[in-house]
């Protein structure tokens, strides 16, 4: 067993264990930290697959952005040290059963299916390849989705400001 295999299994264990812990813990701050480590594990898997650009984006956007945002909103809305209320046991059993059946069904389908790989030569996911493909307007280029996502982000940011603005008191 080579070192790369061991690293892969370590990253997979980190991702899955932290994911399970984040949905089971009753302390909301711990849940956020577990999600953080799960996302770091996924970024590690991207590194392992030689997709450095996606791994960097994952760390910058998810770990540096979204998780920090979530932690801020926990501080704004939650009393410190307070546990989340217990969920009904019936609902837990029902959800666990549904999730287990869905997972078993999916894995059964996946392992029965034989995937065929194409035999074209590999295009390295280097930043120059990604950049030239993302901004190309020819067939297979991603210039239009890129612009659409920019507009979506702008609209979302303005929408956030409008939503989170404190409404003026109407009667005084």
């Amino acid at each position, binding site marked *: 067993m080579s070192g790369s*295999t061991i690293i*892969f299994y370590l990253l*997979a264990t980190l*991702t*899955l264990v932290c*994911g*399970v812990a*984040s*949905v089971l813990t009753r302390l*909301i701050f711990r849940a*956020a930290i577990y*999600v953080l480590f799960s996302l770091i594990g*996924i970024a590690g*898997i*991207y590194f392992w*697959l030689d*997709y450095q*650009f*996606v791994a960097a*984006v994952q760390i910058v*956007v*998810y770990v540096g952005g*979204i998780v920090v*945002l*979530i932690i801020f*909103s926990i501080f*704004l*809305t*939650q009393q410190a040290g307070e546990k*989340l*209320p217990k*969920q009904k046991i019936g*609902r837990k059993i029902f*959800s*666990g059963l*549904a*999730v*287990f059946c869905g*997972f078993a069904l*999916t894995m059964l389908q996946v*392992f029965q299916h034989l*995937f065929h*790989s*194409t035999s*074209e*030569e*590999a295009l390295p*996911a280097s930043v120059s*390849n*990604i950049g030239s*493909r993302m901004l190309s307007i020819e067939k297979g280029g*991603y210039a239009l*989705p890129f612009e659409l*996502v920019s507009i*979506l*982000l702008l609209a*979302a940011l303005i929408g*956030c400001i409008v939503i*989170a603005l*404190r409404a003026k008191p109407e009667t005084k």
Partner: protein
Amino acid sequence: MTEPGLYHLLFISAALFFIGIYGFLTRKNLITILMSVELVLNSVNLNFIAFNKYLWPGRLDGLFFTVFIIAIAAAEAAVAIAIIINLYRSHQSIDVENAEELKY
């Protein structure tokens, strides 16, 4: 333990997806529900990257889908947290069960 390949990545991705679904079904707090949704989105990203790497290595389409999903997830999280904070201001609670009015 075998050499990791496409099936291992699909296993991780499916497991993470259903972990997220479990959190989505059992949580009541809106922020924890948002975290579960992030897990689900990440499992989808992992799937795209795995298929790109092992089935179509000559193209970068899966990678672009992943990058765009990450951008959309960031926008979604920002809007969701703005709504959650607004809800907390008006109801002093962010449990789904207390948020039953469409307009206050």
